Every structure is written in C-alpha cells, then in structure tokens.
C-alpha cells in the first residue's frame, strides 16, 4: 500500500506546496514559481501513472517486450509547453506591472489601486453636488 501509492502522495504534497505559495506569497514572481511547482506535480502524477514495472522507454527495439504507456507522455509534452507559455505571459505581465505600479508586491499594488479608487469616488461625489 505505502510503496504502491507513494508517488501519488508525493504529487499531493508538491501540489499543496505549489498552491500554498501561489495563495500566500505576495511577490508576483514567487506566485509564478509556485504555479510552476504546482504544474510540475501534475506532470509527475501523469508519468507515474504511465510507468510499468520492468518496462522500458516507449521506443520499439528488438528484445524489449514490456513498454511504459506512451499516451501520458504525449499529454505531458503538451502540458509542459502550455506551462512555459503561461510562465512567459505571466512574466511579461510582471514586467509591465513593475513599470506601471513601480512595485511587484501584492499589498503595494492593492494599496495603490484603492487610492485611485477613492480619488475617482471623490470626483464623482463632487460632480453630483455641482
């Protein structure tokens, strides 16, 4: 039981770490790192599902009968590329946010947003009175 499901529990622990980083850490780059860890744990789930005891890599060669399942490998090739695409776009957004807000910490950005929010409300109330 323990050895059989050990891989899945490692996947769950990695997933929890990744999710915690994304939610708890304020730095925007840290969130993207957390996202990367979260996605890598899903890859390990798929690949440990595909593995067959005593099987070799899915490349046909004489003398080898038992292969591990090629389908999850194809799915994970797609998922890795999707993961990198999301990371690249996230990092582009972080660069633009740094230029626009001057900081990449969630509290500073939230603080600046609330400030601009109050200013627009004050203008609106003045507009109504006049």
């Amino acid at each position, binding site marked *: 039981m323990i050895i059989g499901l050990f891989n899945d529990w490692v996947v769950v622990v990695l*997933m929890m770490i990744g*999710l915690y980083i*994304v939610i708890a850490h304020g730095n*925007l780059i840290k*969130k993207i790192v957390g*996202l990367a860890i*979260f*996605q890598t744990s*899903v890859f390990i*789930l*798929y690949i440990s*599902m595909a593995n067959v005891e005593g099987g070799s890599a899915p490349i046909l060669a004489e003398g080898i009968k038992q292969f591990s399942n090629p*389908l*999850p490998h194809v*799915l994970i090739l*797609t*998922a890795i590329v*999707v993961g990198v*695409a*999301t990371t690249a*776009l*996230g990092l582009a*957004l*972080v660069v*633009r*946010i740094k230029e*626009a*807000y001057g900081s990449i910490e969630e509290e500073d*950005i939230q603080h600046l*947003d609330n400030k*601009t929010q109050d200013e*627009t*409300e004050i*203008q*609106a109330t003045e*507009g*109504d009175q*006049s």
Partner: protein
Amino acid sequence: MISHLPILQVIVPLMAAPICLLLKRSQLVWLFSLFASAIAFIISVLLLQQVMTSGVISYELGGWEAPWGIEYRIDKLNAFLLLIISAISTVVLIAAQTSIEKEIPKEKHTLFYILYLLSLTGMLGIVSTGDAFNVFVFLEISSLSAYALIALGQDRRALWASYQYLIMGTIGATFILIGIGLMYQMTGTLNMQDLSQRLPEVAQTRTVFTAFAFVIVGVCLKLALFPLHLWLPNAYAYAPSIVTAFFAATATKVAIYLLIRFTFTVFGLSFSFTTLPLQGLFLLLGLTGIFVASSAAIYQNNVKHVFAYSSIAQVGYIIVGLSTSTITGLTATLLHLFNHALMKSAIFLALGAVVYRLGNVQLSSFNGLGRQMPLTMAAIVIGGLSLIGVPLTVGFVSKWYLLTALLEKGWWPVAILILLGSLLAVIYVWRIVEAAYFKKPLADSVPVKEAPLFFLIPIWLLITANIYFGIDTRLSLQVASAAAQSLFGVSP
C-alpha cells in the same frame, strides 16, 4: 467539403491568425478577420441545420477511430453554442476597428486582431471537440489570448486584473487537467463518449469522485460561479470595450457548456446529481450569487463594473436553472445562454460607444447623455430592460421558462427569490437611466455627438435580435429544447 464542416469551423479562424501576422497593415487585418469570422458563422449555421436534420455528426481527425484518435462530436448542444459564439464574434468585430482606435496604440492593432482570432479559435475548439484532453489544450489557447487581450486595456489596473485572471485561470485549468488525469487513470480512455460508457463501472471508486470534484471546481473557476468570481469584475471593467463585449457574451457560456457536457454526458445524470450534493450546492451558490452580485452592482459607480457584476448574477440564474435537472430546467438554461449573450454583447458594445465618445464610463459622466447620444442610450435602456426580464424582450422568455421549470419542480420559494433578484436588477438599471435622462450634464462636460455608424449598426443589430427573439422564440426554443432532450437521452 460538407463532410469536413466540423473541423473547418475551428481551422478557418485558426489559420486566419498567422495569416494576419503576415498581412501587417491593421485595416487589411481587420477586414480579413471579419471575413474569417463571417465564414465561421456561416459554417456554424450549416452545421446547425445538418445536426437538426441528421442528428449527431462524428468526425475522426487523422482517420483514426474514436478512442485512439481525436474525435469531433457535434450534437445539438455544440451546434447551438457554436452558433452563439461565431454570431457574437462577427457582430462585435464590425465595431472593432473604430473602437480600438481610441483605446489601443496604433502598432498593436494587428496583434489585437490576431489574439482576438486565437481566442475565437480556442472557444470554438472547446465547444466542438469530443476529446477530454483536447478541451484542456483549446481552453489554454482561449485563456492565454484572453489574458493578453485584457492586458491591452488603457488603465494600468488592466494589467493587475489580467495577472489575477491568469493566476486563477491557470489554477482552474490545472484542476481540470488533474480531473481528466484521474478519469483517464480509472478508465484508460480520453474520448468523452467512451468515458461515459466506461465510467459507470468504476463510478463508486473514490478516485472518480475526486476527479468529478476537481473538474467541477476547475470549470466553476472558469465560470466565475459565486465564490470563485473574484477575477471577473476587474477583468471585464478595465479590458478594452471590444474585448469585454466579446468575452462577456461568450467566455462564461463556454464554461457553462463544459459544465453541462461533463455533468450530463461524461459523468451521466444519475452520478452527477446523487453522489456529490450538486443539486443543493448549485441552487445555493446560484441564489447567493444572484443576490450578492446584484447588490454589489448597485453600489458601483463605474458602469462597466455594474454590468460585470450583473453578468455574475446572470450566471447565477443559469446555474439555478441547471440545478433543477429537469428537461424544462435545462431548456431554460440553454435559452438563457442564448439570450444573455445577446443582451450583454449589446450593452457592452453600447458602453464601448460611450467610451469612444466620452473616454470614461463613470456614472457621473453619464449625466444628460440621453439627449447627447440618444441611440446608444436607448440601446443600453432596452438591454437593461431585457436584463430585468420585461415582456417583449429576450430576458422575459428565459425568465419565464426558468420560473415554469421551478414551479414544475414545486420549488415556489426559489421562484419568489428569482423574482426578487430581478427587482435588484431594476434598481441598478434605473440608476443608469436616471443619470442619463433626468440629470443635467455636468458644468464642465463638453457636449458629445452620437456614436459613429460603425458602432450603431452592430448595437442595433443585437437590439433588434434582442426584441425579435423575444417575440418569435421558435428558433431558440426549438433548438434549446431539442438539445435538452438529447442530453436527457430522450429522442425528440
């Protein structure tokens, strides 16, 4: 060529995107993407006819039969959604060129159209595919282009909204990936049809239960159902108006389609509504979503925020319709998908016209707009009325069917709550009407002319559709009830 329609539906906008990159000049690219979207619309109309006459179409990609290769299965539900998405995208594209002149810097126009076509491809791909993993790939295409499109907004808060949407969207997509992985692990297949046949044997295992939970949470994140809706208001309010008009009408609809497809076709009705207390959960979340979002909409002073919150409330109505899990309930849900798309795209296009003229959508700057931009404001008022569900408009039809479904089920308290929810809608629509017609314009505000023709044609096209389908409901009702019956396995 007729037999290749399902794949052409997705390939036409997909190949149009790289071609646009080669065309470079934004005027030419606009016409080309409008042309591509129009072709996609024509294909979806042909597909709908084909499906209504000859039932489900199955198209094997690469010539490999179903569980081995990827298969496109178009039934009444898909065809209906494809029609909505391509119609809305074509109409919204008409106003695109004039709207983005004021909102997006010149050198980024071509990139805007490419991203627009890619998000259209993504949505069409999600709706028409019959393979679980292919849904994830096209979900990523439409989400990535959505993040980039929202980040093109003028306001710096668009960047922050797009970043939050990226984080929430990627977590949602990865949850769906985990769900698909667990389902694949227990059944060994990725094809949805094959999954629905093989899942009942392993339905009682804990892994399939977890897979179901993860897929539902992932889709609800994309759907912006009540507790997971935090990314939607800012994303829709600060994005360019054309992007909001397109996504408000289609993005949540695609997620609802996914929800219906997974609960009804893949996991089967009995499993989805008995194991997880889905019925009670959806009912509760839908109702709270209606009340919380509508009351939040009342206190917003940015009009785009108002209608973004009202979108969340409308999603609440749809989910309540879904939770009845009867044929009329499902028909009401599908009707509301169609009607809500018409309403919201008209309203957000009209707001785009206001942004084009005024530059901002603060409620205070709306004062006295009724006289300066009569046609646009009239469109917003009619859209608002149909949001409330006033007779002779589309909103009334879907509210009517929702209420009959609820009363049929005997849940009259829920029906009363739905009516109360519509009253809340009256309040926030009235706030806008009052500002536009009964308040004098501000002293320093410069009088503005009516919106340009390129805005008025699509807006009024959608408004007439709003009214026409309110009166003659043959098309939308017939397709919606046929789709609902096919989902329940009852041959119409």
